[in-house]
């Protein structure tokens, strides 16, 4: 007899939860602990805030310029970042994290044009040389940030760890990045509510998802409000300015990491985002800043 077990925990700055159907609390707990431990491992490994993280080691080299050899997992993430950079015409860029200096939570006003220009000089995947396993920074003062892919990657891995522990039915939710392990035991899909970008307790869409993954990105997660205008945390590496156009977008894909990078790229494409998603061909739903809703997941949007 399968029971539904919930395993909430905090990681990567988000509320996370594993929902697993298992024959016993022990079976659920064994799977959940393995999965949560891996999420925490990735958090520690790629944290920007920990001196002992791989990200910190890379960025120490980035600060001065120079080369560093990375492990296989990090190399695969860099390959993935390189693919996103290529597929987004350079908008999805693992080096754009330095722009946080202008738009971070500590900022009280708009940055001057000179500030953005100075920071943009230190942004650009094409300003480093990536030849597995060697990463070389051609300019000093650059930084890498894996924040745009690690949470989704962790969701994918957590789901696989649960599946390998015998869980057939369940889902992994890392702060809204969701990877399905399998549908409810009777085959029914999981019902995923997507937060309304402008109404904190409202739902923009409800998606029925039996397999694969859902990721969501929006301008409402972290933003600065200056003179009544909203500046979101997703910053264009071209202009140095927070993106405008879409308020929120959710994408469904087989892998959470693909769904997540597609949402980020759509946000970065701004007004062209919906067209790009259409071309990519993944089911999606979006809301623009005028609260118009669209997407290819029409039947489930409400």
């Amino acid at each position, binding site marked *: 007899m399968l029971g539904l077990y919930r395993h909430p925990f905090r990681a990567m700055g988000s509320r996370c939860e594993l929902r697993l159907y298992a024959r016993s609390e*022990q079976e659920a*707990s064994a799977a959940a602990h393995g999965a949560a431990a891996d999420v925490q491992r990735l958090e520690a490994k790629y944290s920007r805030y920990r001196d002992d993280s791989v990200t910190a080691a890379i960025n120490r080299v980035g600060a001065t310029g120079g080369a560093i050899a990375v492990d296989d997992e990090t190399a695969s993430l860099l390959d993935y970042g390189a693919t996103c950079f290529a597929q987004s015409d350079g908008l999805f860029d693992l080096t754009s994290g330095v722009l946080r200096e202008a738009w971070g939570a500590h900022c009280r006003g708009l940055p001057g044009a000179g500030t953005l220009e100075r920071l943009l000089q230190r942004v650009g995947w094409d300003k480093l040389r990536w030849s597995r396993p060697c990463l070389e920074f051609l300019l000093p003062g650059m930084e890498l940030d894996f924040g745009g892919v690690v949470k989704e990657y962790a969701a*994918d891995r957590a789901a*696989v760890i649960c599946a390998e522990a015998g869980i057939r039915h369940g889902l992994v939710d890392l702060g809204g990045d969701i990877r399905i392990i399998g549908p409810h035991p009777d085959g029914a899909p999981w019902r995923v509510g997507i937060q309304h970008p402008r109404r904190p307790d409202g739902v923009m869409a409800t998606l029925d998802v*039996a397999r694969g993954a859902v990721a969501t990105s929006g301008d409402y997660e972290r933003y600065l409000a200056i003179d009544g205008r909203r500046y979101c945390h997703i910053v264009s590496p071209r202009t140095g300015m927070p993106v405008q156009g879409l308020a929120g977008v959710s994408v469904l894909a*087989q892998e959470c*990491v*693909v769904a997540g990078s597609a949402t980020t790229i759509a946000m970065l494409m701004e007004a062209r985002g919906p067209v790009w998603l259409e071309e990519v*061909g993944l089911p999606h739903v979006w809301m623009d800043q005028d609260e118009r809703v669209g997407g*290819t997941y029409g039947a489930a949007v409400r």
Partner: protein
Amino acid sequence: MGAISDASRNRVSAPLAALTAAAMALPGVHARAADLPGANPLTLYGSHLDYSESGGRMHVRVNEGTATVPVGDRVLLVADALQDLISGASPIFNAPGPNGQPQQVLSGASVNDRRNAGDIGASLFWAENQLTLRQGWSHENDYKSTWTSIEARTFLNQKDTTLAAGFAFNDDGVSTHDTPDDFKTRIKRDFFVGVTQVIDERSLIELSLEYSHSNGYLSDPYKLVFVQSTGLLPDARPGQRRQTAVTGKYLLYVPQIDSALQVIGSLSNDNWGIDAGALEVQLKKELPGQWLINGGGRYYAQSSADFYQPLFQAPPADGLHTSDYRMAGFGSVSWLAGVTKQLTPNFSVQFSAERSYRRYALRWGGAGFSGDNYIWSFYLVTLQAQF
């Protein structure tokens, strides 16, 4: 509706192909087929329970095995078998002591009983509903029982709410070692309704209401009462019993101590005059290395049955009388603790122990006496294997 429509599956764009290929190269994003356990869902459980009371009283050992196997997606079959061995002595009646106070008279080391029991059942699943039917049997020399139960559950609100209702019918026959073929009939019907509600990601609450109605021979053929004016008489209880019980359970995960708190409270009442209440609090904590520990306490109190007295001066006019210690007013305090270790994904072992102190002074009300005070403890070892 599935996640990926057939239309989009058939048309893989160049960006999607590139992103998917890069994602596939990430370690651990897709399960390797060879790593997935095969679909062999037979589950077997075995357990051993050992219960002993202080002062050389009852000792019970129970061995139990359960097997479940799904048939397709909609049916789960269950079979359960158990054997218990009871030995030791139990109070038969109370006699006046030298100071006029009642004293327990135990049976000699006479009781030595074996009970064999089993049941088979099936659960059916459809949409958000589940229906379980079970048929069980139990047999020992002086007691035989046949029971049937049906239970329905429905899951609402994305399974955050569960409604349950059930009915069980027990048809029992009671005899004694001295008259093994003279079975007297006892019928019991149980009804219950319950609701379980997930409150948020950290807590859930469960409420249930149970009503049972018994009739037939409800006395204990081994118990006697001491009546000053006439001597020993057989235990005699009403031919009908109606019991109502309400139980509440609250589960809360406390992140500050990474533990789950479980509180269970219950109140019951019957037409024999027994009011009872229980409160159990337990804390469960997972530790690294696949250990789970739990510990807590339980308080229980009941009032005595209307027809209970430790000793009777004269036979009551209605002919009903018992001195059975279980019908007395008493309370008890228990400590419980357990540890579970997951040895492999298919195999776990659990050990739990409980020690209880029964005290007349803790009674809810009514009659009783301190000669019934005693201590009992039990331990339970469960081995769980899953194949």
